[in-house]
C-alpha cells in the first residue's frame, strides 16, 4: 500500500476533482477493497457493483475525509463494508447452504501476514481482542471478516443467538475499555 501520507494527499486531490489522483487512489486501494467485499458478498458480480458504488462515493465525499480521525484505507474500507453489509442484511440472510463455501469456518492454512502490515494500531487492537475469551474473539472476527449477522453466527457456531447478542455487546464494550478513547 502506498504510504498513508500519500493516500491522504491523493484524497485531498480527489476532493478537488483531480481525476488522475483518483485513478492513483483506485490503483492503490482497489485490491484491498475488493478483497474485503468479496469475502463478505461472496459473489464477484455483487462485489464489483459495490466497488463502483464505493468509489463513486469516495469521489463525491473525498472532501469530507478527515485525516485526523481516520486513515484513508480504513475510511474507504468502512464505506465499502457498510454498503456490503447493507446488501447482505437487507436481502435477508441467506441460508447457510446458499453461502459461499469459502465462508465456512475454516481451518485452512492461514495466509501469512506480511510483517510490514502489522501496524501499531492493529497490534493494539489485537492485543485487546486477545483479552477476550477465545469464543468471543471468534465471533467478533467472523462478524468483521465475513459480515455475518447474529443469526448466522449463532447457526454456524451453534451458540444461542441471545448468547451471541450478549457476547457481542460485552466484547465490544470491553474492546472499547481496553483501547481507550
Amino acid at each position, binding site marked *: 500500500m502506498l504510504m498513508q501520507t500519500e493516500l491522504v494527499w491523493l484524497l485531498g486531490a480527489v476532493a478537488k476533482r483531480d481525476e488522475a489522483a483518483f485513478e492513483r487512489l483506485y490503483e492503490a486501494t482497489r485490491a484491498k477493497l475488493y478483497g474485503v467485499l*468479496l469475502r463478505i458478498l461472496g459473489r464477484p458480480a455483487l462485489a464489483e457493483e459495490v466497488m463502483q458504488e464505493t468509489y463513486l462515493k469516495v469521489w463525491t465525499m473525498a472532501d469530507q475525509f478527515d485525516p485526523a480521525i481516520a486513515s484513508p484505507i480504513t475510511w474507504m474500507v468502512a464505506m465499502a463494508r457498510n454498503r456490503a453489509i447493507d446488501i447482505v442484511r437487507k436481502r*435477508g440472510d441467506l441460508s447457510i447452504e446458499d453461502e459461499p463455501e469459502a465462508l465456512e469456518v475454516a481451518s485452512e492454512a492461514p495466509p501469512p501476514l506480511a510483517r510490514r502490515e502489522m501496524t501499531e494500531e492493529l497490534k493494539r487492537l489485537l492485543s485487546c481482542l486477545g483479552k477476550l475469551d477465545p469464543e468471543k474473539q471468534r465471533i467478533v472476527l467472523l462478524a*468483521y471478516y465475513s459480515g455475518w449477522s447474529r443469526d448466522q453466527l449463532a447457526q454456524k457456531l451453534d451458540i444461542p443467538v441471545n448468547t451471541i447478542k450478549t457476547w457481542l455487546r460485552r466484547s465490544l464494550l470491553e474492546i472499547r475499555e481496553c483501547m481507550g478513547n
Partner: protein
Amino acid sequence: MYDDDRDALAAEYVLGTLSPDERDQAEAMLAIDPGFAEIVRVWERRLGELNVMVEAVEPPPDVWDKIRTEIGGDAPRSAIEPESSLPVEPAPQTAPDAAAEETPDMTPEVKSEPDLSSAPMLTLDDLAPPRDLHAPQDLDGPRDLDGPQDLDGPQHLDEPQDLDGPQDLDESSPVAALASSLLPPDGEPASQIPAAPDAAVSVTPRAKVERSADIVYLARDARRWRGYTAAIGAIAALLAIYIGIEQFAPALNPLGRMSQPVVASRTQPPGSRLVAVLQQEPTAPAFLLTVDPQNRTLTVRTVTTSAGADRSYELWLISSKYTSPRSLGLVGGEQFTTRPIPADFDAETLRTASYAVSLEPAGGSPKGVPTGPILFTGKMVESLPGSPS
C-alpha cells in the same frame, strides 16, 4: 448506561451485526445526531485496522472503466446531486441493474498480491515486530496502471520504529493467528463461486427495494420549549421520538436489548416509508412511533422510563390543516402498543406533520390540547436520495 447502549449500537453498526431494523435506526441516528456519528467514526477506526489482515484481490479491470465513465467530466452527476450530508441509507439506488447486465465477464482475476511473495512473511507464530523497512518505495515512480498493486508496497515505513516489543504480542499473536485462520485464502470466493450474474441481478433489485426508505429527520425545534425543560426532571432530559412511517417492521429496536419480534413480512414489497428521529439531546430514543399508512395503524414502542403514576405522555400531531394539535393518544403506558390511526388523517398529513410529546396529567390532557410541557417537537425534513452509503 445510555452511553453504553449507544456505544454498543454504534459498534455493532460498524461491525455489521445489527438486524435490518436496527441498522435503519442507527442510520437515522447518524443523520441527526453528530455525537452518535462521532462514535461510529471512532468505531470505524478501532475495528478498521482488521482490514490489514484481509488479503487483497485484484478486481476485474472493467470495474475501473465503469467508475471512470460514471465520474466523467468535471462535474460528475453524483457530485451535484443533492444528498449527502446524511450518512444514512439513501433511497433507491440508481445503480446496478445496468451495471450488472453489462458485466459479461464476472469472473475477476484473482491474483495473490504481486509482491507479497517477495516480502518478508510472518508465520502465525511469529507476529513479532513488524515491518519491512526495505521494500521499494514507489511513491514517485510512474504508475503502471495494469501493473501490480501498490497495496503491497511499504506502509508506514517512514514512521519511527517504536515497537513496544513483545509484551503485547503475547496477546496479539494468538488473535492474529485466529484471525488468519478465519480468513481463508482470498482466491476462494472468486474462484470457487461461479460467476453468478443471474443471482446478482436477482438479488440486487431486492436490495434496492428494501432500501427504498426515505430517511427523514425532524429538525430540532425544542428550543422554544426550553422553558419547560426544568419540568422534565425525572425523565432524565433525554427523550427521543423515533417515527417511522412504514408498511411493516414496526419493531425497531433501539437498544438492541429487547427481544426482536420476527418480522415475517420483510419479504413483501415495502410501501412508502419514512423514518425520522427527534431527540433533544444525543441519546437513545425514548419512543419509537411507527405509522403504517396502509393498515392505518400506529405503533408506539416505549423505551424511556414511565412518566410516573400521576403523569402520562401524550403524543400529538401538529399540522397546518388543523388549528390545534390533534391527540394521537397516550403513549408510554405499555412497552408496545398498537392502535388505529384516526380516520381524518390522510397519508400526506401523516407525512408532513410535526409530532410532539407532552407531559400531561394521568389519563391525558383534559382539554384536548397539550396542557403540560411539550418535551419535543419537530418538523420533518426529507432527505433526498443520494449516493450509496
